[in-house]
């Protein structure tokens, strides 16, 4: 099924007239008035509904397919979270309404802050960052503010392992820092000797994901913390992989000073085809004064927003209001439904699924990037051998998986593992589903042996065949140019 562009459904003079008032004319000085209407589609309500419903059907999603996209924690998004976040009172609440008219909402936010503190072992939480990357920004900005507040002005270097997610170095740059990259060892742990050499008086801090994006737990984390702290730096925890350790070990206990959490991963708020997310940050005692505002405070029975006046050393505001409130409500509902024991089960069963997959794939002859390590909630296999021997690379496997009815794992990330697939099943997938996926990988390898071209030509059963990305970037076509008839 293909679907034309909405502009191709458009005919001049048509719209969904039940959706707007009629007969008013604005009073705008001629020089400021719009002359030519914008090129928006002119369609009926049914046409719009049909078009976007059909478009939706062209997507793979958690609700329709196994979606083991590594580092993204594509777990089931409980419908209750959406239903409760969309209660009419929550939807219609203006962000700038007085606190007295928002005690119900604020109480949820306050409790969410408290729960996140408990889960991470941190002393304070600010919910305002709107995604992981903004959480990272807040974290590194706090680290910088901390050093500045102490007059320690030359600390402008951020250390990142080579396995780090792209947002880590990009964030360091945005905060005006430079990036010192340190390598990973063949074991998957970071090169501790290189770290020792990298730290020094310019070290602002280190950004780490643990378990790392290599799908393994950094075993010498306590020593890492000691080395960085002794050098005067702080430790930033990229919480993208928090799912793996929920209730098993806490970043605060590992020695991290600041952390962001991807609530859209660990706490199962929807990914929405690209967002929204939420990158709530947690801090230890010494970074408390620097948290981004607003933060919810509780005074007796009453909740209120704490702002610049309460936290004069804050790094400031990162959004016009308070961040992605509706996402936070969803995370709150999810956490209440999981409860204490449920949180631990998240780590347990996501680890069980990942280690099971890894074991079975190894058994089937696939090459684990870190064959001697436990998987965290995810793991890497590399298709280097298949690429070399069969001419079928990781991307080919990924595309062929689509034909088998599975979303592909993350491909070619982390960059340091060649031809890699980063596979994260999450705890909400069943053994049956996982077995079917493993069987598909095995079947594709067999296909590749027999007929490599077939695999390289995949996908065949999707709305489009493989797309020409090079042409997309060279012959830029970013908007539809014809006007509607």
């Amino acid at each position, binding site marked *: 099924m293909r679907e034309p562009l909405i502009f191709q459904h458009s005919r001049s003079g048509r719209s969904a007239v039940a959706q707007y008032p009629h007969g008013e004319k604005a009073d705008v000085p001629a020089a400021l008035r719009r002359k030519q209407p*914008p090129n*928006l589609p002119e369609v009926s309500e049914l046409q719009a509904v049909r078009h976007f419903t059909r478009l939706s059907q062209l997507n793979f999603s958690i609700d329709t397919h196994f979606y083991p996209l590594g580092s993204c924690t594509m777990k089931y998004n409980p419908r209750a979270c959406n239903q409760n976040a969309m209660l009419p009172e929550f939807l219609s609440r203006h962000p700038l309404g007085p606190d007295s008219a928002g005690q119900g909402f604020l109480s949820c936010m306050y409790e969410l802050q408290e729960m996140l503190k408990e889960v991470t072992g941190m002393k304070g939480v600010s919910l305002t960052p709107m995604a992981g990357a903004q959480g990272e920004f807040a974290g590194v900005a706090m680290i910088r503010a901390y050093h500045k507040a102490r007059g320690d002005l030359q600390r402008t270097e951020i250390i990142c392992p080579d396995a780090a997610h792209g947002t880590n170095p990009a964030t360091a*740059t945005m905060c005006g820092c430079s990036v010192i990259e340190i390598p990973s060892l063949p074991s998957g742990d970071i090169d501790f000797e290189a770290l020792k050499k990298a730290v020094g008086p310019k070290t602002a801090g280190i950004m780490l994901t643990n378990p790392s994006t290599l799908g393994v*737990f950094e075993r010498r984390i306590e020593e890492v913390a000691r080395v960085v702290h002794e050098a005067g730096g702080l430790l930033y925890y990229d919480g993208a992989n928090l799912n793996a350790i929920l209730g098993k*070990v806490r970043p605060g206990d590992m020695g991290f000073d600041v952390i962001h959490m991807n609530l859209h991963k660990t706490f199962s708020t929807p990914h929405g085809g690209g967002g929204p997310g939420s990158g709530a940050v947690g801090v230890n005692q010494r970074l408390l004064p620097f948290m981004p505002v607003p933060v919810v405070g509780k005074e007796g029975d009453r909740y209120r927003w704490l702002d610049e006046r309460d936290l004069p050393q804050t790094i400031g505001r990162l959004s016009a209001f308070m961040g992605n409130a509706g996402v936070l409500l969803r995370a709150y509902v999810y956490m209440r439904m999981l409860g204490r024991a449920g949180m631990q089960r998240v780590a347990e069963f996501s680890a069980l699924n990942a280690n099971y997959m890894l074991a079975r794939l190894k058994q089937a002859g696939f090459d684990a990037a870190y064959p001697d390590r436990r998987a965290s909630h995810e793991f890497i296999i590399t298709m280097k051998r298949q690429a070399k021997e069969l001419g079928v690379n990781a991307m080919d496997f990924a595309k062929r998986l689509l034909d088998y009815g599975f979303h592909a794992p993350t491909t070619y990330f982390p960059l340091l593992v060649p031809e890699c697939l980063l596979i994260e099943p999450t705890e909400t997938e069943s053994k049956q589903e996982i077995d079917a996926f493993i069987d598909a990988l095995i079947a594709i390898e067999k296909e590749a042996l027999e007929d490599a071209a077939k695999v390289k030509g995949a996908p065949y059963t999707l709305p489009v065949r493989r797309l020409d*990305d090079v042409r997309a970037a060279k012959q830029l076509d970013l908007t539809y140019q014809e006007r509607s008839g």
Partner: protein
Amino acid sequence: MPFIPHTDTDVKEMLAAIGAPAIDSLFDEIPASLRIQSLAGIPEALTEMEVNRLMQSRAQRDGRPLNFIGAGAYEHHIPAAVWAIVTRGEFYSAYTPYQAEASQGTLQLLYEYQTMMASLTGMQVSNASLYDGASALAEACLMAVRANRKSKSARILVPTTVNPTYLEVSRAIAEGQQLTFETVAYTPGTGTTAASAFNAYSGQDITAVVIQHPNFFGLLEDVDAITDWAHANGALVIAVVNPMSLAILKPPGEWGAKGVDVVVGDGQPFGVPLSSGGPNFGFMTTRMEHVRQMPGRIIGRTVDLDGKPGFTLTLQAREQHIRRSKATSNICTNQGLLVTAGTIYMSLLGASGLEQVASTCQRRTSELVAALTKVKGVKLAFAGPRFHEAVLQLDRKVSDVIEALASRGIIGGFDLSRRYPELGNALLVCATETRTDEDIAAYAKALAEVLK
């Protein structure tokens, strides 16, 4: 086990395949000293039924007061079709379209969105969203520094009629990269920024000028003159706009002789509920010449192996996952689902529907102003042409008035007195198309009571 599908048999078989005695042993690489046994501070699980009761009681506590604030977030009618489609699992539970072939729904929608936003703002290209309007302004300032190769100063001029929070956010985000923001005062009598206010900077190295239009007071700025001043002085122009206003106002692409360089704003008025301020979506459009400096995802149309058209993420070399520390921004997850809402909203309303909504908002605000300024102790601060917000001056402390109104079920407006002390007891009010005659009368009545 909520949300976990494993049967006892599954667990046994899986552990056997792994060769592990128990699930707990999967964590044996974690130093034992760090392991915790439980999360004592987390309450016990609630069933969905229990959580529903809890959330309903929280929601009811806040109720649904009559709202007259705008100040960056606007209550508009949202067609039922919008969220019925947005919350379909295929949109709701998908992620960034890394596998283009399996994400044509999201990708085509984003391409359509880009087309709509570019046309609405009068620009050539759009990205696929940023977090919100405020952070979009910060990104635009950073982008201007990259795009304005002739300027070395990284100085940005910002009228004080720009949403003060937007400026704060820009500072918080961009100052780390040594941008400096300098404010330009508005004309006290008019509430708008005179082009002549910029003359003090003529001839200096200015990287960009920001213009918010309608400005934070709801007033229309002299956009043509300011744009032309900026261009004449080698500065780029960043427009901050309410997309709803563009249904009736000249698009930034047509401001002044050449049009602006970057347009940003918050897409919230297009089908996104107030929802305590988020998630909204930031939008950004620009000229084709600057596209490689733009942050955020961009979708392009291309062809597949059979030569048939399809859509894919493009210009990824700007982005963090490829360019890492040299990326145009660190943004990764954006606000895709809200863009979905916005795109469906624009499709339902069309240009003529948007024009009606925008026009009605303006009318309603005029009626609100007329009704409220009849109340003793209330006067209008600025009389010039406006969109759908207005500044009132009261004879009483604004925060007290707001509390008194709230206890009557009315959210009366945004208190300007902290941000703009020079305006005295100033209240920013807004009426959109959702406010009826009765609503306005109810507000006037309550205000009269409060100010008695």
